[in-house]
């Protein structure tokens, strides 16, 4: 039976923000991005860094023209990445899957928002 861990009152986790809550000998990072909540263990699948303490960055894409020529790079704000601050491994915010090698992923948790606040099911 999963236990509920209180994260924050709804107003204390505004859009675009992240909160890290303790969970035993580890932590869970909880994000609200574009109205949706996501939660992951603060533990990188690489060398165990605090993945949720890093930057949240949009995916970088190459702009390739019809004639296959390279035209530069851009941010794709529809795909946000959790970036581990130790070495820069990037994880898809929605799924927790590592973007460069999907054999790795962050441990995902369910999040619920109730009247009195946000909870993680751990």
């Amino acid at each position: 039976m999963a236990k509920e861990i209180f994260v924050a009152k709804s107003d204390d986790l505004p859009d675009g923000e992240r909160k890290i809550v303790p969970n035993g000998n580890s932590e869970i990072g909880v994000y609200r991005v574009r109205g949706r909540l996501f939660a992951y263990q603060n533990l990188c699948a690489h060398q165990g860094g605090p993945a949720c303490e890093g930057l949240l960055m949009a995916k970088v894409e190459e702009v390739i023209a019809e004639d296959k020529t390279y035209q530069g790079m851009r941010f794709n704000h529809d795909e946000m990445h959790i970036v581990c601050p130790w070495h820069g491994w990037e994880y898809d915010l929605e799924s927790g899957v590592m973007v460069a090698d999907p054999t790795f992923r962050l441990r995902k948790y369910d999040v619920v928002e109730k009247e009195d606040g946000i909870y993680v099911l751990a």
Partner: protein
Amino acid sequence: MDIPTSDIHKMSVEEFDTKKLLINAARQRDRRKLEDVLIVDVDCHHYENESLRDIIQYIEDPVIKQTGLLYSGSGTGAQTPLLPGVVGYQDVSGRVMRYPLRKLEQTPADGTHRDVHLSLKWMDAMGVDYVSMFPTPMLLLGLHPQPEIEVAMSRAYNRWLVEQILPQNERITSMLYLPFNDPEAAYRMVEEFGDRKGVVGFSVVSTRYKPVYDNAYMKTYRLMEEMGKPLAFHASYNWNDPLLGATNRFLVTHAMGFTIYNAMHCANWVINGLPERFPGLKVVWIESGLAWVPWLMQRLDNDYRMRSSEAPSLKKLPSEYMQDMYYSSQPMEVPNDLDVLEMTFKMIKAETQLCWCSDYPHWDMDLPSVIYDLPFLDETAKRNILGENARKLFDLDVSGRFPDYTPPGGGA
């Protein structure tokens, strides 16, 4: 401070503390009981440019010193002419956050140098007992067009390090920088500093264009061999190199750059028979990872079998000489198929020749767990690679941390 990100999610950070950043490293240390394991880091770094004014005080040439002082002061708006500029963004454009945040970190004003405080913080978090510390921007000093600047800066740095930093804590040692573009100055450096406390060897930054087989270096190699001090070749990169100039992503510049110079010097070292001329000189290859070693071994063996007349001093295969050399582990390539790594370990005789290192605080640092968690190593091999091999290499007195130290596996 604010770290610019891709959009609205700009990140605001008020404080930075290495201890907090490395909490998960400390948890790994405790779970694996690494406090009981001798861990010697053969390659970590500090940022000597943050102490540039102090270092410049040690420059003897009055004209170079005046120039250095002028540009290390505020107001000129110019970068110091004593260190070549660097193109590149090792921090993956701020994603590796300890780069932009390091200036926020507070250290006590208690007379102990900030670099010592910062080093001990991360060492304790990882469970590291001793380190061999290298500079950072000076890794490109061999590319300075004026050899006299390389000599002046490296001599000032070495004096500052030996007089001001190393005496502050016996856990911090160094393989001192050799100004390799001036062979006579390199010789004098070994002569003058070889016996100083905390000096465990000497290093050549391999990003340079002087061949290791030049006769001008022979007396320096002989002196190091006599002193029993190892010679390390420390990797770096040069994006302005005509070859690397054809790379357009730092990923490639780094993946290639940090291996090709060491591979080139290593091949020259072996094929010119230097291991036969200096059989007692221990040679260490630092910060090129490990994957290049099996590649070069196979290339050289294959060519040597066809062209041994070009390497007449050799009495065994090039790969066998390379198995007598030492390698630092970081950045250790960890393939999804660990059989590949296991074979690499076998080819380099990792149990006796491999020395773990962190490269901390640089972006591609490794924790001790990269070795300790490998399923194909037994406990003795793990302990050798994490500390014992380096203890022997440096002839390190570890009694300060382990008064009753016995080598792993009960060996001598």
